[in-house]
């Protein structure tokens, strides 16, 4: 029987379900891609998830994917023919790449980043580039130079950030999978706000070559999907050692999903009490408590624990990330690409003016914060101190993982807030990342899965594993998903 792909419900399939339809010859990638592009053009005036849509490239990729699916030469992958989005801080050859910044408007990269190249080689159909907070700096997608993204569950609310476009697009059925980047929660927090799955793997498992750098020791690429299995499949494809990223490493396991069906009976799951902060919303707290009962019913041991240094994680992050950002963003000088030099009398003035005009408020704030923390007289008190406390936070996690298979926390202390609600209070916005930031500081794997609703808005549950414990995180997430219904609800859009 031919699939009714005009039915919007179809666009909420998982990538695995879609691939099964390709294999059964119920539908072709070209048909799905055309339908996807129609759906995107209908929804974009409302959502603004994309910065760039590439219909011609997408249709061409879909045609190639259909040939590959028919001939099995080369062997199709889990993503062959599947419409996906990449965040607009991924370098894409011949396609404008802005990182949502005015300073990069019009920049056409001469090369593909490693993940983009890998996705193309796998036969994925890239339909466009996702909106984000400028240079991935933000928790609401409101700092984008291309306007905010609207949450498909309530268009007056933010989708989270910085991978706001990616999460909104997956939640709204605009694409089946999106790839984002996570420096302090930028995949997991928007995934939670939009009711989808988002994972930041262990630092180093996915190449950062061609990812526009923000905080290099923290940045990690990962997938946003509608199922845990799709997340594992995606990571199997994009992970691996890449000699163009000297911090990348090979995974010490063959398959992210190797333990996906093993259940969680007998596992020890820790609940660090510092994550249940005073400011946590009551709906988030009660959804979290229900999740803990679910884990107990599934045979896991739920044990309260304490990670006292969590209280310092926000300070450590907001020193280290801006310090790295201030160095990384020094390359935008108005000479090589991006916003041009103005008619000034010296080259130095041209750079100062291009950067003053090209960067938005939040990016400037972080450059200033980082420059200050690295400047003479303040380096030891801020940057060095933060790096030392980073060591202590890592050790605290390591000793917790001697006792626990994984830790669980809410992904964010709140559900999606209103557009405009927090944008004028930077520190209040930073507090949003309080549950996700410690994970990046320690380089650990962590996933957010849909875990409930509060006032009709999605709530996310975060599962954190030890370094290279990605399969454990996926195992727990998959068992939770099988036992709950939250991943099945979709926004009425």
């Amino acid at each position, binding site marked *: 029987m031919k699939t009714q792909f005009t039915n919007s419900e179809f666009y909420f399939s998982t990538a695995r379900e879609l691939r099964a339809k390709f294999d059964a010859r119920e539908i072709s990638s070209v048909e799905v891609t055309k339908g996807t592009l129609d759906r995107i053009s209908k929804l974009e005036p409302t959502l603004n998830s994309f910065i760039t849509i590439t219909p011609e490239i997408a249709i061409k990729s879909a045609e190639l994917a259909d040939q590959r699916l028919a001939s099995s030469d080369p062997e199709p992958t889990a993503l062959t023919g599947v419409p996906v989005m990449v965040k607009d801080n991924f370098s894409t050859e011949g396609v404008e790449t802005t990182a949502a910044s005015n300073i990069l408007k019009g920049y056409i990269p*001469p090369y593909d980043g490693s993940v983009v190249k890998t996705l193309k080689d796998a036969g994925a159909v890239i339909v466009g580039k996702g909106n984000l907070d400028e240079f991935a700096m933000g928790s609401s997608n409101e700092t984008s130079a291309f306007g905010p993204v609207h949450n498909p569950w309530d268009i007056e609310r933010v989708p989270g950030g910085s991978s706001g476009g990616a999460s909104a697009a997956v939640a709204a059925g605009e694409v089946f999978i999106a790839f984002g980047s996570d420096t302090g929660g930028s995949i997991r927090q928007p995934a939670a706000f939009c009711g989808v799955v988002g994972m930041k793997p262990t*630092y180093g498992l996915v190449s950062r070559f061609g990812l526009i750098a923000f905080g290099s020791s923290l940045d990690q690429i990962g997938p946003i999907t509608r199922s845990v299995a799709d997340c594992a499949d995606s990571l199997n494809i994009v992970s691996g050692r890449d000699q163009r990223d000297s911090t990348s490493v090979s995974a010490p396991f063959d398959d992210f999903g190797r333990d996906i069906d093993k259940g969680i009976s007998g596992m020890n799951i820790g609940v660090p009490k510092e994550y249940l902060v005073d400011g946590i919303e009551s709906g988030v707290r009660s959804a979290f408590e229900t999740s803990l009962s679910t884990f107990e019913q599934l045979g896991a041991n739920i044990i309260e624990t304490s990670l006292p240094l969590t209280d310092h994680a926000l*300070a450590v992050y907001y020193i280290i990330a801006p310090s790295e950002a201030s160095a990384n963003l*020094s390359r935008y000088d108005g000479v*090589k690409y991006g916003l*041009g030099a103005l008619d000034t009398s010296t080259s130095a003035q041209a750079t100062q003016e291009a950067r003053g005009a090209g960067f938005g408020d939040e990016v*400037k704030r972080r450059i200033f*914060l980082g420059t*200050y923390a690295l400047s003479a007289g303040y380096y030891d008190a801020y940057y060095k101190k933060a790096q030392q*406390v980073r060591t202590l936070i890592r050790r605290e996690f390591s000793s917790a993982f001697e006792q626990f298979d994984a830790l669980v926390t809410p992904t964010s202390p709140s559900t999606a807030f209103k557009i405009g609600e927090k944008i004028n209070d930077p520190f209040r916005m930073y507090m949003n990342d309080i549950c996700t930031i410690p994970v990046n500081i320690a380089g650990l794997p962590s996933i957010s899965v849909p875990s409930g609703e509060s006032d009709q808005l999605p709530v996310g549950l975060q599962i954190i594993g030890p370094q290279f414990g990605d399969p454990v995180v996926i195992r727990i997430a998959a068992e939770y998903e099988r036992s709950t219904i939250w991943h099945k609800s979709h926004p009425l859009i």
Partner: protein
Amino acid sequence: MEPLTHRDVEHISELAYVKLSDQEMEEMRVHLTDILGHFASLSTVDTDGVEVTGHTTDAYSVMRKDEPFTPMDQEDVLRNAPDRDGEFLRVRPVFE
């Protein structure tokens, strides 16, 4: 901590090569003072003798084979330049 002064922000602006308007300077001063105030508690953590963590993969001095490869085409790389002269990037005078 002491609030930042206008001169402090001006100094950071020079170091960071970012020109701000007077209004932006004042907003930056207020926001940075607020944010840095929240970081003061970090000084209470005992870090005597603790080494720093720069990144978390424990990989150091990663080497690769020195094999020749074809670099990107010069024209492709220069195409994005806001101002150029043939195969050169053109910039404003370095000295006044």
